[in-house]
């Protein structure tokens, strides 16, 4: 027990970071051991990013980091210093319509309890950016990094197909 005091862990080290989240630049001093997921949820109050396992399997905490889908529970906030993060709250404006992916999830009943949903939407966003016209098999393969315990995935696949179709349509209209 005498050695205990010397061994008492000290995790007080902090660091300054600047992160752009959903278009807002935040400058914060954070403990170096703070997870990015906890930083988003507790420091920035962006609680739409959920935490389902904290070991990088379930995908609930998926956000876009410089446009790529990452697990925010597997990163420290300090590692996001200088980067651009998009969370579910950044998908559609406060009073604007739902993003086509969100809209498709409602129309196809692609969510039940809604806990895994923000992570899945972010993964789908990244997936459709890479591959605007995925096959069913590709969708299922890409989605396999996100666990949903409610839907059995079928309506999620349908929602992704509908969203992909609408986004392609939008793209054609822009061109």
């Amino acid at each position, binding site marked *: 027990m005498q050695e205990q005091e010397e061994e008492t862990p000290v995790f007080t080290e902090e660091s300054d970071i600047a992160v752009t989240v959903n278009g807002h630049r935040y400058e914060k001093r954070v403990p170096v051991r703070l997870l990015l997921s906890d930083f988003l949820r507790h420091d920035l109050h962006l609680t739409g990013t959920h935490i389902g396992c904290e070991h990088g399997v379930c995908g609930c905490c998926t956000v876009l980091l410089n446009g790529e889908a990452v697990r925010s529970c597997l990163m420290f906030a300090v590692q996001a210093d200088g980067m651009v993060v998009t969370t579910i709250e950044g998908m559609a404006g406060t009073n604007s319509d739902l993003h086509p992916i969100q809209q498709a999830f409602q129309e196809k009943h692609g969510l039940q309890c809604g806990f895994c949903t923000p992570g899945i939407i972010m993964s789908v966003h990244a997936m459709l950016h890479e591959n605007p016209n995925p096959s069913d098999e590709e969708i299922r393969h890409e989605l*396999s990094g996100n666990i949903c315990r409610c839907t059995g995935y079928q309506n999620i696949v349908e929602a992704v197909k509908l969203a992909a179709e609408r986004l392609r349509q939008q793209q054609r209209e822009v061109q």
Partner: protein
Amino acid sequence: MATRWFGASIPRIEDPRLLRGRGTFVDDIDLPEMLHAAALRSTHARARIQSLDTTAARALPGVHLVLTAADLGELLEPSPLLVPHHALTQPRTQLPLALNEVHYVGEAVAFVVADSRYIAEDALDLIEVEYEPLPVVHSLEVAEALDAPLVHADVPGNVAAHLVQTVGDPDAVFEDAPHVIRETIVMDRGAAMPMECRGVLARWDAHETMLTCWISTQGPIPIRNGLAAIFHLPEHKVRVIAPDVGGGFGTKIMLFYPEEILTPFAAIHLGRPVKWIEDRREHFISANQERSQIHEVEYAFDDQGILLAVRDKFLHDAGAYTPYGIIVPIISACTLPGPYRLRNYYSEFTVLYTNKVPVSPYRGAGRPHAVFVMERIMDRIAKELNLDRAEVRSRNFIQPDEFPWDVGLVYQDGGPTKYDSGNYQAGLDKLKALLDYDNFSAMQAEARQQGRYLGIGISCYVEGTGIGPYEGAQVRVESDGRVFASTGVTTQGQAHFTTFAQIVADQLGVDPKDVLVTTGDSQAFYWGVGTYASRAATIAGTAMHLAAAKVREKTKRVAADLFEASPDDIELADGKVFVKDAPHRSLTLGQVAISANPLRYAYGENARKLMSIKLAGPRPGPALPPERGAPGLEASEFYSPPHGSFASGAHGAIIEVDPKTGMVTFVKYVAVHDCGRVINPTVVEGQVHGGVAQGIGGAFYERLVYDNEGQLINASFMDYLLPTAAEIPPITVDHVETPSPLNPLGVKGAGEAGVIPVPALFASAIDDALSEFGIRVREMPLHPRRLYEILREAKDQ
């Protein structure tokens, strides 16, 4: 009145909020001054606690409270036995924190409250516990052995309960039966694994002497009642809210989990809000589990394949405690007869303690095991007599004109196991058509020529749903014409904000979007039980219907007075209340609500417009005449069913097995489901999809593996494999609608159905695919390696 919204696949009202990331799950709530808790859990399955030193933890800066059993005072009481039963002679429930001895890996030993979860976990590392390990009961086989160690020193033989039920005279039938077979059928542990772990946030308001708790639970009202008793508070001074709940599947109907007592205790003690959020590893070792049973079943049948009698003796693994009584094995015993005319049945079960996480219902709750046993019987009869598997089932089905059908057993709710309605053959016929069952053998033969092993499986089941005791609902029209509807049940994904709104909208002639449903807040609705046993739509839904119908009648009476018309001539539609055949004599529903509340002061647009409309003046006498009762358009109603309603279904699948690896893939999956009248088909189909996915997980991917020391060795999502989109096949769903005669809506429960027949179906399909090896599957779950072993054993013989 023709219903309009009931039966429509409208989009879910709750979705936009959840899709925008604006749901409110417990961990999303952030209160000023809030502290964070973490629990220290036993690392031994059975051990004596020799010493517990929290000195260093208490000294860590940022730590506000460290609780051990010694600090709990009068709170150190075993949690209540939720469902007592005369056969449960040795109930044992858990202390909020272990005292002297631990009984499973994961049992809470200490509870730390600190400025952050990070510091709280640092403090856990500083708590020194010395354990003296004791012999461990890690399986049913060990628990049953004559010289078994004891999970609880004062429970001889580890036997918690023993129950026998008999229908008819099975012994006599067995004596003369043409065919008798006996076999052992085993199901191992799995878990619900909702994506949101458990969580509790408690706030004590000393000024109002009010305790408010947000809990990720399926039963906030029983928790409210319990917390009031535990903390000696009036019930109305405790508010329990189940906000958005990220899946429950039964795990969260359990109460009290220790943290549900420790967190409010800490909040009261510290005078600051305290939040405890379970992490996934904790969930694996401290949230209740299910499924482990060993059945020794004996069955007798005749030359035509008619099942004459069943004798089933099974062991049920309770884990370390029995907080939920013996509900699960009772359901197994009562579900086993299924859709078949079984008139001679002996059922005996023994509930044994083991040094594992306690068992309480997980979606399906005892039913997948029973269906597995019965459907294995049906397949075996077919095989022995060289009959078609579907044909054997048809020969044994209860016929549509035989309802109500009394199985002759006492169900989990203490009432009869009595099927209210059903049409099992219609379901099987639909399944066969969708599966192209009759042409499968040609497909199978062709595949086999190419060296591929295809198999078809079918499974039929009956599910007790919609049990009592009761639920209630309150419906109130507000001044702006929107309708407030609340009930005590919770929502963890079942779309109650939509389906209850559909039920209410039909009665009040409004759009479901204008019905604002509140669930799971003890302050919004005082009475109720919870969302479990596929009962919310049936029981709370019926209460919603009754309350809305009462409001409708009152609306008609109030409007009739205003229009000087007969109530029978008043109609409600499109948010308006009008005189039949004279639609110009019309008010909005909100205006009628204002008129029903004889205030001096009424506000808002509806009230101003109301002033300008020429209506009958108030009658002489009291402003609220006695026949009108209360002010406003408001009613509360309760519904208590005579007994549970029984849904049913038939699932079928075509699979392909790779005998070299034991890997199985689904070629086709079809689910035909009968839950009576369907409120929202899209929602029901979603429930079935999700259930099937959990069933496939439970049949092939998910198995909780405990080693001989009672350590759960796959306590992470890396090792306990939940199926992903890549493993779950497209599922075809179709319905048979046999209305329940027990409630005015004709509905039955749908929540658990999908999961129930899957293990049986999977076994049936594997047997078929590997028939040339003489495989007979008698255990679940099967994972690829185990299937490979079974194949090798078969080849070696």
